[in-house]
């Protein structure tokens, strides 16, 4: 009854991320962090732009963490869909709150 991971059907196979790939992901995340800090510290006179860029870069970092570290890339697509649904729920609530506030 013992079957190795290799002869399982394709969707049952486990993807093992290499150490090298994890390291590359970290380098990407560190680079993005450096960019955010540099923009915010040296772009102080572009205030509104720096907030927007900081949030944009943060979102890119979150996507990288979720996709590679949290394994969404290799997991069943249902997880990605669930994450998207929760993200849409949150963003729409945030946007509706700001519209409500702006129309006061």
């Amino acid at each position, binding site marked *: 009854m013992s079957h190795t991971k290799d002869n399982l059907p394709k969707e049952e196979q486990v993807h*093992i991320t290499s150490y090298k790939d994890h390291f590359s992901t970290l380098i990407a995340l560190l680079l993005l*962090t450096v960019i955010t800090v540099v923009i915010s510290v040296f772009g102080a006179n572009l205030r509104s732009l720096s907030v927007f860029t*900081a949030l944009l870069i943060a979102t890119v970092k979150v996507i990288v963490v979720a996709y590679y570290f949290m394994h969404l890339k290799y997991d069943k697509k249902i997880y990605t869909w669930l994450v998207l649904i929760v993200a849409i729920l949150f963003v729409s609530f945030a946007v509706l709150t700001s519209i409500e506030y702006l129309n006061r």
Partner: protein
Amino acid sequence: MEHTSAFSLPNSGHNRDAEASKMGMWLFLFTELLLFGGLFIVYMVYRSLNPESFLLASFELDVAMGTFNTVVLLVSSMTIAMSITAIQTGNAKKSIFLLYTTLGLAIVFLIVKYFEWSAKIHHGLFPGFEVYDNLPPGESLFFFLYFFMTGLHALHIIIGGIIISVVIYRTKKGLVNKEKYTLTENAGLYWHLVDLIWIYLFPLFYLIH
């Protein structure tokens, strides 16, 4: 059990379901995301009401310490992800070493946080102190949200540390191994969530120059 059955089902004893465990963990993470999400919306509304005060108050925070802690958390996210690779390839020793590294980084994060908080508290910027009570309303709101949100986040770091310790213990006992590593994976997912929240907290509190 009083009586044992005369026959056993083909899969008796197989009460593990890695996929269901992972799904359960993700569903829990969604509730966490919405908990912090609500706080981010509170932050957003109060900040749009008091843009200047939030900006002034944010200058009190130490960007260098915040950046250092961001790097610490990102590295710890990598080490816990690598500990999963290690256990999947059957290298329990390496997995334990990487989990200890993650735990160490969690402690470094908390120590830095301790120094940051004590500096603010020393300056009386904590709710209940005279300096805090006499701040313009917008600035006290900033510090209130700063302490509440980073405090809740630090609590998650502590809980994450406890979970990682449990994984280390169970890996040492051989209960987590090459065939059964769902616990390591779920601890990893939780730890990454803690990292994700910090990725937003950091620019919103430290970098709004």
